[in-house]
């Protein structure tokens, strides 16, 4: 399945991109599973696994890492928000 993944703030800078499409084997994965899959590609992505307080949103709603991600979802990883 294919999902759109977004990165913000320090992650976006470290990865040199704010978004990518990820093709994942199978039809369902948790947000945590997706994070580990991306981190498994090595640096700089490995910092997703190390990040303290990493936050995740699926389809623009905050979720825990046990949330289910499906085909076509928009998944975002970012540090805690620092407000306006």
């Amino acid at each position, binding site marked *: 399945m294919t999902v759109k993944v*977004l990165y*913000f*703030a*320090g992650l*976006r800078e470290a990865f040199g991109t704010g978004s990518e499409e990820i093709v994942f084997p199978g039809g369902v994965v948790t947000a945590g599973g997706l994070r580990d899959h991306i981190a498994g590609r090595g640096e700089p992505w490995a910092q997703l696994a190390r990040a303290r*307080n990493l936050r995740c*949103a699926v389809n*623009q*709603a905050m979720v825990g890492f046990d949330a289910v991600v499906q085909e076509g979802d928009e998944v*975002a990883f*970012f*540090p*805690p*928000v*620092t*407000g*306006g």
Partner: protein
Amino acid sequence: MSISIQEADFDSGAEIATLTADSADAGAVASFVGLVRGGEIRAMTLEHYPGMTEKALAEIVAEARRRWELLGVRVIHRVGRLLPGERIVLVAVASTHRQAAFAACEFIMDYLKTRAPFWKREETTAGSRWVDARESDDEA
């Protein structure tokens, strides 16, 4: 109710006036303008999550409208690189009564400053860094 996230500056007075132009009952407009503070900061860059940030602000404004009787709410939040003294945010709330206007304006601002999906990077003479969540509500 109207929410804008934009790079452009805004005219606080015009926004306040627009908010009450259509309502004969609006006797009270409480508003807040946040600015980039100077001191050690040379510039501040604000990043947001297009789509999700707007949605989050719309939800908090809707919550404010459930809690208080409001006649109008205007939120403008700037993103991009801002210099000390520049306006960052405007929240203006019109109501029949001033207590509701003040309470709702402060409620929305508290949310914006602490939980809204924005990330801040500060530039100082020592360099540039993303602000930690724990320290971020020190400001304004």
